[in-house]
């Protein structure tokens, strides 16, 4: 895919950053089912690594508590890098303080685990209008 083709700079890929394998695995199934294309990272470092090598995703679904590099550390690193700083981030976490943390790190929004599928897809469509392909 061409990530810098002028008009459509977005790659329409959803980047999921979560240390829990089951969450990644489930989202892989679910997002595929809903017609989204998704990429996965197990922590903030993997996510930064992905972002440095791949086209910009349309949204980052970010878990908060992760080993090595957590949500806050990832956001700090992201905002320091102008190339990726403006990619919208939505927190997807079981943290009870997701709302205040979302504001604190300047995220576009937050979703609390467990999340309703309809709510999740609605948020994804809003941020990635061009991402939905034909659902499988």
């Amino acid at each position, binding site marked *: 895919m061409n990530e810098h083709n002028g008009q459509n700079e977005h790659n329409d890929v959803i980047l999921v950053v979560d*240390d*829990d*394998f*089951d*969450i990644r*695995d*489930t*989202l892989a*199934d*679910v997002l595929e*089912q*809903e017609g989204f294309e998704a990429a996965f990272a197990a922590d903030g470092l993997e996510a930064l690594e992905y972002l440095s090598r791949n086209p910009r995703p349309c949204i980052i679904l970010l878990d908060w*508590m*992760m*080993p*090595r590099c*957590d949500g806050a550390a990832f956001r700090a690193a992201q905002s320091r890098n102008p190339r990726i700083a403006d990619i919208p981030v939505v927190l997807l976490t*079981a*943290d*009870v303080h997701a709302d205040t943390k979302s504001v604190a790190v300047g995220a576009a929004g937050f979703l609390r*685990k*467990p*999340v*309703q*599928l*309809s709510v*999740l897809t609605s948020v994804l469509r809003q941020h990635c209008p061009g991402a939905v392909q034909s659902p*499988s």
Partner: protein
Amino acid sequence: MEDRTLLPRGMVREAVRPLDTKSDLLLLIDNVVDYAIFLLDPNGNVKTWTLGAQRMKGYTAEEIIGQHFSRFYTPEDLATGKPDHELLVAGEVGRFEDEGWRVRRDGTRFWASVVITALRGPDGELRGFGKVTRDLSERKRTEELERELMRRKVAREAAQSAEERIGKVERRQRDAAQFLADASAAMAESLDYGATLRRIASLVVPRMADWCAVHLSEDGAIRKLTVAHVDPAKVALAEELESKFGPRPEDAGGVAAVLRSGMPQLYPQLTDDTLAAGARSDEHLRALRGLGIRSVILAPLKAHGTTLGVITIVTAESGRIYSDHDLAIAEELGRRAAAAIENARAYREARAAIRVRDEFLSVAGHELKTPLAALQLQLQSLVAAFGGNVDPRQMSKLVQRLGKTLGQAERLESLVNELLDVSRISSGRLVLQAEQCDLAEIAAEVIERHSEEVRRAGSSVAFEQTGDPVGSWDRGRLDQVVSNLFANAVKYGSGGPIAVRVDGDDAERVRLSVRDHGIGIAHADQARIFGRFERAVSERNYGGFGLGLWIVRELVAAHGGRVSFESSPGEGSTFFVEVPRKAL
């Protein structure tokens, strides 16, 4: 001019003719009102009588002359033979003097002064006795009244002084009660016992002492909590003394001794010898002398038989001398202060326990929600995808995804079981089912069951077995022990190799070790990793309740074995389990 004052008043008027010495003398004897003057024969019988005697004793001359003089005496005196004794003495020495009760004719008594004089002729022959009796009743009454007044006065004064003393005791007790009540109130004000004891010290000074110090025993050391004196300059001096010569646990006397014995000490008047014995150096002694200490009490702060500290109260400038009463107050103060400390500590521990519990509940909620999130998303997605007719070509995909939901349900179940295990173990309801099993077999199964996680983590596993590691254990629980340790090795192993070793060479015991090369455990955290609700990785980034190692330790202990570990941060950890073969 005649000196009339020498004569009774009654005679002055009649003294108009020259005195006939003999008859006038008789006249005098007869008219002396306050005296009975008469003669007794040598046997004690009344020979003469006068008007004065009649007035005093009530007998007429006819009635009494010839009667024995003993009838003037009380039955008590008669019983002791007093009249004869008096005559005997008077006869022997010429004179007998006495003061005592005499009896009138009508039986009434009067207090009399009696002088009996032996009358002897020129040849020395006893011719009889002269008796002069004076009625001292009036004087006696006056004296008695005075004595009574004096007695009453003395009694009143004694009563007053007793009242004062009682008042003083009462006042002292009231003061003591008030003081202790104030102290209790101060203790109730705050659950910060440092602040509380400082308040108490400020109550003690100046109400009870010129100085007050509180020391607490903490972790084998003696910590000064507070020193109080009305004069801030003196407080600074005491602080300096404290920093240089403060009590040490090894001291033979003073605070350290009271801490050891739990017994109070009272020095009503501190001697220089005592001071010298307690001083650590000449400089110390000079400083102590400089304080001008008079009286000292050291009272233990005692709660439930444990001496938590010592309150030292000292008088100097006030010159007050402590008594047992003061010691009792100080002891009571010590008891109440200790109770306040206990309360504060219990409160602090309870607060800490509540904080740990709240943190745990937050972690638990997070941990339960994660598989729940996966399960719910998967099911909702499955319903959406396969809600209508199921395309047979999609069947294998459906089965695969249903299998994943089953996995999430199992994950939830194991989390719930972990919580229930904590409850079971904590309440002593853990029941072990003994069966003959092979620890190597269990370990191999655990490794096999975690192969997917190992693969995902990028780790490799080396398994080694020596000897015959069989024993009588609860198979499920030992599986849980090995699973927990192995899962930790995978989780915290940073993708490095993991070595599992089962050693069955020993006849009595079987050993297992699980070694990883991961992040290791920081030294600061090593002491608490087996604690309930504790985990070394405080950021909670590694998932799980953090109950695993606590459960491991409890399960191994239930088998009569023990768990230990070696770890270096950044180099990995090795956990060792040792269980007796005949555990159950």
